[in-house]
């Protein structure tokens, strides 16, 4: 049992656990599992705007989502307290490929030489964090959903728009991984 708390979960525990948030949110309040809507709700709540896209009652439509996202942050914090320092056991092939691109620190959840405050204003830090974050925000708003809303909720409900979006997710991810990362890492 202590292993379950401190060690990473195998995929057959992790995947079904993630899938169960879909029925849980439906049963609690008819809410569709999704995270990127929180970005729109946050914009609507904190950036006064005359843009139609942000003019709606965010408390009624999205307060639940902002609370859910606040919970995600707390959950990440709690999980970090229980577990041993995370060392993600990626495949040797991936490790070698990343090392060839100049990644040397394989401790933690993301390489500190890219994802740290001291790296933020380097080219690789800026592109990964600032440009990457911007594309996440723009892309999920345009596509009206992210991995949770489309890849999990949408595919589980057999919705064609979600399938198109997921194909797009992977097209973009493959382009960035194989053509963009080697340019700046």
């Amino acid at each position, binding site marked *: 049992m202590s292993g379950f708390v401190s060690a990473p979960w195998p995929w057959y525990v992790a995947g079904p656990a993630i899938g169960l948030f879909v029925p849980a949110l439906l049963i609690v*309040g008819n809410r569709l599992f999704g995270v990127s809507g929180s970005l729109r709700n946050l914009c609507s709540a904190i950036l006064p705007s005359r843009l139609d896209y942000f003019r709606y009652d965010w408390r009624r439509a999205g307060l639940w989502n902002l609370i859910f996202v606040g919970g995600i942050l707390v959950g*990440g914090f709690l999980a970090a307290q229980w577990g041993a320092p995370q060392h993600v056991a990626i495949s040797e092939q991936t490790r070698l490929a990343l090392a060839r691109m100049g990644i040397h620190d394989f401790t933690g959840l993301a390489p500190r030489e890219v994802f740290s405050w001291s790296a933020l204003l380097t080219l690789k830090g800026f592109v990964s964090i600032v440009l990457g974050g911007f594309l996440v925000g723009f892309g999920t708003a345009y596509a009206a959903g992210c991995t949770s809303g489309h890849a999990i909720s949408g595919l589980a409900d057999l919705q064609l728009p979600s399938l198109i979006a997921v194909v797009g997710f992977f097209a*973009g991810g493959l382009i960035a991984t194989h053509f963009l990362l080697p340019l700046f890492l």
Partner: protein
Amino acid sequence: MSTPPATDQRSPIPHREPTGYTLPAYLLLGVCFGIALTKSEVLSWFRIQEMFRFQSPRMYETIASAVAVAAASVALIRRLGLTTVSGEPIAIPPKSLGSGVRYAVGGTIFGLGWALTGACPGPLFALVGNGVTVMIVAVVSALGGTWLYGLLRPRLPH
């Protein structure tokens, strides 16, 4: 050029006020989801790289089993005609397809960002909780991206 349909699936505002007891339930579910994102390692840049390089089945197994469990649950909810805890019928609104451009292009743009940050929106928040505090900057930048979409929306194909 026709204007995009007003039926953005996020736009229809549900006619329900959040009730007193459901808000703590969303908080609790969010906490559980943050733990699941961490223990599943789907929030790790390393795992995302491994996935986009097809060097381990782990991420695919995780996502596929999540979809399978979610799909079976939705089918079961429909078959049993389950309601929410407050007795409302459960309904998943269909997403409007439109021309499909928004899903293909928006999805691809998000995919670029997913591989660059190594995180989709849920993991961005979970990473901040995990102590990768620089991801606060990625969240702020994502808000900027969302805002720019709101600005350009009338001129983009949907």
